[in-house]
C-alpha cells in the first residue's frame, strides 16, 4: 500500500511517501505566504523522489499547525499523534518523544503502540522552539547552522536568565558587550531552550528511550544541552524533521 503524510509546519512543509511501512520518498519546502501552494510543490517533489505517480497514492493524512489547509489529504491528525506514531515505528523502545519545531516545542509520553499517554506543549512563547535559536544566532551574527558546533567548543557554562526570546536577545547583546566568548553564549542559548523543553518532559513524566524529532534536532549543540539536562542519551533519527509526516503517512495506511 502506498500512502503519504503531509506535515504543514509553521515554517516548512514536509511530505513523506510510504510504501508498505517504509519511507520511499520525501521533500521539504519553505511554507512562505502560500503554504498550500508550497505543499503542492512538496507533494510533487516527494512523489518524484519516490518515483510514484499521484494516482498510485491510496490515502493522504495531514498533520502540523496548518493541517486543515493541506491539499490532497482526506483526514488530519495532531502533531502529537503523528510524532508518536512515527517514532515508535522506527524505535519500538521509545517511550518519550521530544519534538522541537520552528514555533513549538512538545514532549510526548507514549506506549509501544504509539498511543499517547500524556503530552505537554509550550504556550504562546518562542523560548522553547526553533525560533528562539534563530533569533539568538542573529543576535550573535552567526549562521544558524554554525551555532550548534560552536557551542560544543564552550568551556564555561553561563546562565541565561531570560525565559523570553525577546529579553534573551537583550541578554545576548549584554554578554557580547561584556566580551563573553561567542561559544559560551551559544551554549547558554542551547541550555536555556533545553531547560524549557526538559520542564515539559518532566511534566509528562519522561522515561527512556527518549527520541528527539523536529528540525531543531539537527542542532548538535541543543542535543548536547538536552542530554545534559535530561541526564540521559537522546536518540536522533536520520531525518528528524520528517518524522511527523512519516507518522501521518503511517496513520493513512492504518486507517
Amino acid at each position: 500500500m502506498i500512502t503519504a503524510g503531509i506535515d504543514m509546519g509553521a515554517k516548512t512543509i514536509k511530505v513523506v511517501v510510504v510504501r508498505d511501512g517504509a519511507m520511499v520518498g520525501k521533500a521539504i519546502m519553505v511554507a512562505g505566504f502560500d503554504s498550500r501552494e508550497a505543499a503542492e510543490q512538496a507533494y510533487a517533489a516527494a512523489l518524484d523522489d519516490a518515483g510514484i505517480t499521484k494516482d498510485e497514492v491510496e490515502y493522504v493524512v495531514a498533520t502540523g499547525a496548518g493541517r486543515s489547509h493541506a491539499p490532497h489529504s482526506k483526514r488530519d491528525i495532531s502533531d502529537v499523534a503523528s510524532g508518536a506514531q512515527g517514532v515508535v515505528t522506527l524505535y519500538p523502545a521509545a517511550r518519550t518523544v521530544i519534538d522541537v519545531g520552528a514555533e513549538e516545542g512538545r514532549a510526548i509520553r507514549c506506549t509501544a503502540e504509539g498511543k499517547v499517554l500524556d503530552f505537554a506543549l509550550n504556550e504562546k512563547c518562542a523560548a522553547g522552539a526553533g525560533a528562539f535559536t534563530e533569533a539568538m544566532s542573529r543576535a550573535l551574527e552567526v549562521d544558524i547552522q554554525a551555532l550548534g558546533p560552536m557551542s560544543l567548543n564552550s568551556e564555561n557554562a553561563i546562565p541565561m536568565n531570560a525565559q523570553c526570546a525577546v529579553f534573551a536577545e537583550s541578554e545576548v547583546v549584554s554578554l557580547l558587550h561584556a566580551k563573553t566568548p561567542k561559544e559560551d553564549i551559544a551554549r547558554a542559548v542551547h541550555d536555556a531552550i533545553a531547560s524549557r523543553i526538559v520542564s515539559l518532559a518532566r511534566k509528562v513524566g519522561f522515561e527512556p528511550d527518549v527520541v528527539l524529532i523536529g528540525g531543531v534536532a539537527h542542532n548538535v549543540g541543543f542535543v548536547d544541552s538536552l542530554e545534559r539536562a535530561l541526564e540521559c542519551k537522546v536518540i536522533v533519527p536520520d531525518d528528524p524533521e520528517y518524522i511527523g509526516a512519516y507518522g501521518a503517512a503511517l496513520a493513512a495506511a492504518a486507517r
Partner: protein
Amino acid sequence: MATKQTYETRPLECWGKAKEIRKKYYQDYAAAHERGGIRWAGGAWTFGAIPCGLGDDVHSLTSEPYAASIAADKKFSIKCLEATERAGYARDLCSYMRNYWGSVILDEYLWGGPFPKPDFIWQDHICCSHAKWYQVVCDHEPGIPHFCIDVAVGPAGEINENKLNYIVGQMHDGIEWLEEVSGREYDDEKLIEAVNNECRSTSLWAEVCELNKAIPAPLEEKTMFSLYVLGTLMKHSKVVADFYEELRDEVKDRVENQIAAVANERCRLMSDTQPPWGFLSLFRYLESYGAISVGSLYTFGLIGMWEDKPDGSWGPRTTPRQKGIEIKDRDQALKILAEWNLHKPEWQHFYSPHLKTEMMVRIAKEWSLDGVMLHYNRGCEGLSLGIAENRLGLLEAGFPVMTFEGNMGDEREFDLARTKTRIDTFLETLGFKKD
C-alpha cells in the same frame, strides 16, 4: 471508545426567560434613579441579600458578571482594557477588574449611555483583587460610600461560633451603615425573605447541576454559563429562585425523556475556572468529537450550594426551610446567610488547592467523566490559585487532563487556533475522532 449513538435534542424552553431576566437586571440598575430607587455595586460574592432590607427598589450591579459581559464584547473590552492601562494600571491584574475599571474610566455603560454611578458600594473580600477593586473605583468615582466585609475565616470545615460571629458582627455594623448612607429605615422582613430566596435559588441551581449526572447530559456548559449567571446577579431574588425552580423542572423532564444537550454525546468532560468569555465557541468545537463539557466546579459551585447525601453522593444542600427552620429575626437571618455562604464550594480553595482537588475528583467520578480541560486562567489569580496542583490530583485519581492557557477577560492572552489544536490532540489521545 463508546459506540456512536444519536440522542434527541432540543433547545431549552425557558432559555428566552433567562435572557429577559438578565436584560431587565441591567436595565433596572441603570434606571433605578428615575424611579426614586437606589443603586449599589459590589462583587457577585458579596452578601447581596442584606441591602434588600432597604426596599424593593434597590438594584445592584455585580461587578464580575458585568465585566464578563464586557469581555464577551471584544471591541468594547479592548477599549476598556486599554483605558485602564492608559490610566497606569498593570496589564497582569485581574481582567474582570480591568474591564470594569475601564468602563468606569471611560464613563461608558456596556448597555449604552454613561456608566451608572452607584449610590454605595457593598463588597466583601474574597481575594486580593476584590479587596482593592472598589478602592480604585472610589478613586475614579469620588464620594461613593464603601462598606466591605472581611470573610477570611478559613474553610467550611473549620468554622466555629467565634468565626461566624466575626462575620455576623460586621453584617450588623453594615446594616447600620446602610441606614445611614441611604437615609432609609431597614426592614428585617425583607432581609428574611431575601435570605430564604438565596438559600432556595442556590440549592436549586445545585439540583439542576446534579441532574447533569445523567447520560446523555441534559445541559452543556456553554448553556449553563448563561443560566448560572442569574445567580451571580441576584441569587437573593424571588425572580431567580422561581426561575431556577422552573429550570429544574424542565431539566428533570429532559433527563426523564433522554433529551440531550449534545446529540452525539460520547465523551464527557469538565472545565475549570471562568472560560475565555470571548471564545465560548470553544465549547461548541468539542461537539465535533461528540464531546461535551457537563460543567465544572466553577459552574456548579460558584452559585450552587451542596452537601453530602446519605448515599454518599454530592447533592443540593437542604435549605433552612426544608429543615423546618423559620427565620424569626435579623440576627438569625444574618447567621444563616453567613454560614450558608461560607460553605460555598468555590470559597474553599482559597484556603487549600487540596480541598478543590477533592471536589473536582468527586465531580469527575459522579458525573462519569472521560477527562478534564483545565483553563490556566491568567485573568483570575483567585480561581486559578493551585490549579496545577489540581491537575496532579486529577491525574493521580486516574483522570486524563489537558491544560490550556488563556484569560477570561483579556482576549489578547488567548490563542483560539492553538487551543483547538490542543483539544484535537487531547481528544485523539482519549480515542475520540471527529464526526
